[in-house]
C-alpha cells in the first residue's frame, strides 16, 4: 500500500545523482517516472503470463487475455466509463486523437467546422488539420487571453455555431498549466450537436477525472504521463459513437469475417485495435491506476497544485521573468516562464548542471508561442514525488543563471 510519507521510495529512478547533484526531476509534463510496483507488474507479466491475446486457446494465452481485458476494465473504472468496451488501448494520447480524427472525422464534409483552442498540443491540432484537408471541413480556434492563459469564452457563442461538428480541447494545458472548464465546454458542444473530444494527457494522472461527470464523447490520455509505461494509452469513447465508427486501421484482431474482397468488423473496442496490442504495458497501466488511486487523486491534485502555486509565487519574485498561465486557481501542476535575458535552452542546460531536469522550448505548442511572441519557455512540471525543497533548489539555480548571463 503506497503512502504519501514514503512515495519517493517507490520510484527507483529518483534516487540518483546527476552531474554530482541529487536528481530534481521536474519534467513530469513530458513523462513521469514509474514506481517499482508498475515495473514489477510488467516484469511479472512477461516472466509468467506472456502469450498473445485473444487468439490462443492455451493456458498462457488465456491468462494473458484475462490480464489484458482486466486492465481494460481497470482503466474504465479509473475514469468512470460505463463499460470496459468504451476503452480502446492505443499507443498514447497522440494515437487516440488520430483515431478519433481519422475514424469519426471521416464523416466530415465541406462546410463543417472543427473547433479547437489556441492552447492545443500539436497532437490535438495536426490530426484535425489532416482530416480538414481530406474532407474540406474548416478549422476554427477559441482564442487564448494572453499570458494569463485562459480560454476567451466570451466569444464562444460566436464560434460554436451549428456548423461545428467537433469541439476538441485540452483539459490541462501542457504549456500554460491552465485547467479548462471541460464539463461546461462539453455541455456547450452538446447544445449545438457537436461531439466533444478532451485531451486529458496532463490531467488523468493528476486529478480525479470522471468521463460521465465531464459529459465528454471522447477522452484521450497516455500511460507514460501517469506513472505507467510508454507506448500505452487509451481512448475513451461513448459506446454508441464507437459502434457507428469505421475502422481506422485494418489487420488481425479487429475482424469478424474476412473475404478476399470484403470484410466485416468486430464491435468496439476490438474494431479499433488491429494487430497485436501492447498488452505488457496495459498490465502496467492498470497497476499505475491502482497505485494512483491508493494515494488518492484528490490529494494528488492538491499536492501538485500546491507545488505549482509555491513555484509560481517564488518565481514571480525574481527579476526579468515572464510567467505564463493563470496566477492562482485553475492551475495544474506546472509552471512555465521565460527569462528576458536568457533563452530557455540555456536555462535548461545550466539547470541540468545542478541536477535539475526541466523542459525548454515550444512544448509542441508552436502557434500559441507565436501568438504570445515567444519562441519558447522553460517549464517545471510536478508530480506526486516532488517537494517544496526541490522548488528552492530550482529557484537558487535560476538565480545563478540570471547572475551568470546578467
Amino acid at each position: 500500500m503506497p503512502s504519501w510519507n514514503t512515495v519517493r521510495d517507490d520510484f527507483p529512478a529518483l534516487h540518483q545523482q546527476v552531474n554530482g547533484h541529487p536528481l530534481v526531476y521536474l519534467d513530469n509534463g513530458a513523462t513521469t517516472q514509474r514506481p517499482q510496483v508498475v515495473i514489477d507488474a510488467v516484469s511479472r507479466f512477461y516472466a509468467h503470463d506472456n502469450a498473445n491475446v485473444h487468439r490462443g486457446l492455451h493456458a498462457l494465452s488465456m491468462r494473458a487475455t484475462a490480464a489484458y481485458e482486466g486492465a481494460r476494465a481497470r482503466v474504465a473504472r479509473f475514469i468512470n466509463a460505463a463499460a470496459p468496451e468504451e476503452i480502446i488501448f492505443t499507443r498514447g494520447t497522440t494515437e487516440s486523437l488520430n483515431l478519433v480524427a481519422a475514424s469519426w472525422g471521416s464523416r466530415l464534409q465541406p462546410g463543417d467546422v472543427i473547433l479547437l483552442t489556441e492552447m492545443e498540443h500539436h497532437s490535438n491540432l495536426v490530426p484535425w488539420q489532416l482530416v480538414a484537408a481530406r474532407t474540406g471541413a474548416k478549422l476554427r480556434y477559441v482564442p487564448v487571453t494572453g499570458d494569463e492563459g485562459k480560454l476567451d469564452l466570451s466569444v464562444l457563442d460566436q464560434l460554436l455555431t451549428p456548423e461545428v461538428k467537433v469541439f476538441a480541447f485540452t483539459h490541462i494545458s501542457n504549456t500554460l498549466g491552465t485547467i479548462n472548464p471541460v464539463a461546461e465546454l462539453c455541455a456547450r458542444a452538446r447544445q449545438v450537436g457537436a461531439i466533444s473530444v478532451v485531451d486529458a494527457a496532463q490531467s488523468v494522472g493528476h486529478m480525479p477525472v470522471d468521463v460521465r461527470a465531464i459529459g465528454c464523447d471522447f477522452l484521450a490520455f497516455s500511460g507514460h504521463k501517469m506513472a505507467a509505461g510508454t507506448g500505452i494509452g487509451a481512448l475513451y469513447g461513448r459506446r454508441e459513437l464507437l459502434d457507428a465508427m469505421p475502422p481506422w486501421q485494418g489487420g488481425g484482431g479487429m475482424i469478424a469475417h474476412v473475404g478476399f474482397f470484403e470484410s466485416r468488423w468486430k464491435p468496439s473496442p476490438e474494431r479499433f485495435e488491429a494487430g497485436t496490442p501492447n498488452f505488457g504495458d496495459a498490465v502496467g497501466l492498470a497497476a499505475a491506476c491502482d497505485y494512483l488511486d491508493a494515494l488518492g487523486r484528490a490529494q494528488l491534485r492538491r499536492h501538485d497544485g500546491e507545488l505549482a502555486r509555491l513555484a509560481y509565487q517564488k518565481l514571480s519574485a525574481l527579476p526579468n521573468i515572464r510567467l505564463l498561465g493563470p496566477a492562482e486557481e485553475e492551475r495544474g501542476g506546472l509552471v512555465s516562464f521565460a527569462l528576458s535575458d536568457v533563452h530557455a535552452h540555456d536555462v535548461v542546460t545550466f539547470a541540468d548542471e545542478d541536477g535539475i531536469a526541466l523542459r525548454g522550448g515550444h512544448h509542441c505548442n508552436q502557434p500559441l508561442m507565436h501568438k504570445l511572441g515567444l519562441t519558447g519557455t522553460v517549464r517545471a512540471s510536478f508530480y506526486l514525488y516532488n517537494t517544496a525543497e526541490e522548488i528552492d533548489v530550482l529557484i537558487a539555480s535560476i538565480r545563478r543563471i540570471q547572475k551568470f548571463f546578467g
Partner: protein
Amino acid sequence: MSADLTELYQQVILDHNKRPRNRGRLPTANRVAHGDNPTCGDQCSVYLRLENGKIADISFDGSGCAISQASSSLMTTQLKGKDAAEAASLYQQFHQIVTTGEAPEAISDLAAFAGVHTFPARIKCATLGWHAALNALKGDPIPATTESRLD
C-alpha cells in the same frame, strides 16, 4: 560551475550573445535563407549581398539560445569577403570543432565553440546559422532545417 559548462559558455560566446554583430535585416541583400530548428523552435535568417561571387556584406536575425545567437553572430564576422568555396571549407572546419572539440590551427575565434561537442544536443544550435548561410549562398529558396542531412 562545471568545467564543461565554462567551456561551453566561453567569454567570446557570451559576448556575441549579448552584443551580436551584424544583426538585423540587410537592406542591400540579394540573397536570403531561413533556418529552423523544429525541435526547439529556434529560427535564423541570413542575408547576403553577393558581389562577383564574394560575400560583400552579411547579416542575420532570428531568435534562439546563446549558442545559436553567438554562433550566427561570429559566423557573419568570419564570412565577410569569402566566396562560396571558402565558406564551405570554413563550415567544415567549424563542424569539426563542434562535433569533436578539436580545432584546426589558425581558425581564430571559431575555436570558442569547441565546448559544444560535450553537449551533443546543442550541436544543432551552433550550426543553425551556418545552414542558412550556405543555403543563401546556393541561392536555395528552401528554408534550411537542422533536420536536413547537411549537418
